[in-house]
């Protein structure tokens, strides 16, 4: 049996589970990326590009040893969160997105908390950043609730962006 360069662990995150993305996640992913709600995470994008997010996600795990999980609630994919470190990133980022109809349930907080803790334990990623657009009030609130603090302004993919810094785990409450 060939051993691959990565395994994507399944994580228990309270009410939700973090698991590897799969091709069958295309429909909800493409539906999210078809809407303006994806404007803060690279969208909107056509369906063919949503497929490339799935394969690119698996490639990211292989190349970096870490990446983004799908957030599953009652077996249903409802979003994504985890670590992104592509060409053009200053350093590994903790990112998240919750798909339509699943916001406001505290899903992202639980999921991102679990991903962040696993990053410290398993990937040596501690005190990471999150790139957040200044008009993304919902994500700013979540970052602050997670204990992250505004660090600096930057320009990210030609748009103004704020860098939030997550606390080192031993400093976190």
């Amino acid at each position, binding site marked *: 049996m060939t051993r691959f*360069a990565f395994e994507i662990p399944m994580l228990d995150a309270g009410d939700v589970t973090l698991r590897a993305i799969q091709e069958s996640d295309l429909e909800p992913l493409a539906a999210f990326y078809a809407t303006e709600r994806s404007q803060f995470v690279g969208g909107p994008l056509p369906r063919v590009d949503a497929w490339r997010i799935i394969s690119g996600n698996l490639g990211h795990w292989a190349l970096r040893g*870490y990446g983004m999980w799908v957030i599953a609630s009652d077996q249903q994919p409802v979003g994504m969160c985890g670590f992104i470190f592509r060409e053009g990133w200053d350093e590994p980022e903790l990112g998240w997105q919750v798909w339509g109809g699943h916001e406001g349930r505290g899903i992202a907080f639980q999921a991102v908390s679990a991903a962040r803790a696993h990053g410290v334990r398993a990937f040596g990623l501690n005190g990471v950043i999150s790139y957040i657009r200044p008009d993304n009030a919902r994500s700013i609130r979540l970052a602050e609730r997670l204990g992250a603090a505004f660090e600096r302004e930057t320009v990210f993919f030609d748009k103004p962006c704020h860098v939030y810094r997550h606390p080192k785990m031993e400093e976190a409450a």
Partner: protein
Amino acid sequence: MQAPSSSLPVAPLTQAPRLETQNLILRGPEHGDIEPMIAFLTDRERSWGFGSYDNRHDAWRWFGLNVGHWHIHGYGYFTIEDRESGEVAGITGVWNPDGWPEPELGWALFDGFEGRGIAHEAAARAREWAYTELGFMTLTSNIVPGNDRSVALAERLGAWLERTYQNVYMGKEMLYRHPGPESLDNDGSVEAYA
């Protein structure tokens, strides 16, 4: 802060087999192929017929996309290595992302490796692998009008123009149909090399 170097995976990025020809090795993508691939994809003069990118970020994402493609489909683009020098000469393989009309046999050579028959030798081997190991019964190659070099190679591989279609990224493309596995010669090659 930097990504801890200890997190750099050392196991193969994909399950791609290692295939050999007289002059070449076809193998899965490796970390060391990233820069040659980015150089190719961001060089519009070279990659316009393949799909060019105007920035390193998108080119890097294409590299990861190919790695993930291997995991989803069990096939993708091999890196072509020149057996004698060990240099990375280009890519060839089977490509089938969402939106593609059919699985495609594709190829591209990096700067300095054209005119030596490398693409033919590599693509013929990848096609043979797809027929004998993956069980494909047919393959196509999508070629942008004006890419005469690729048309010549497709024809040398025995493929014929079947129709044109609109590719989701490339616009109008010609779809070439390859001879099927029934055309395999006894020695395992799809046809005698010229």
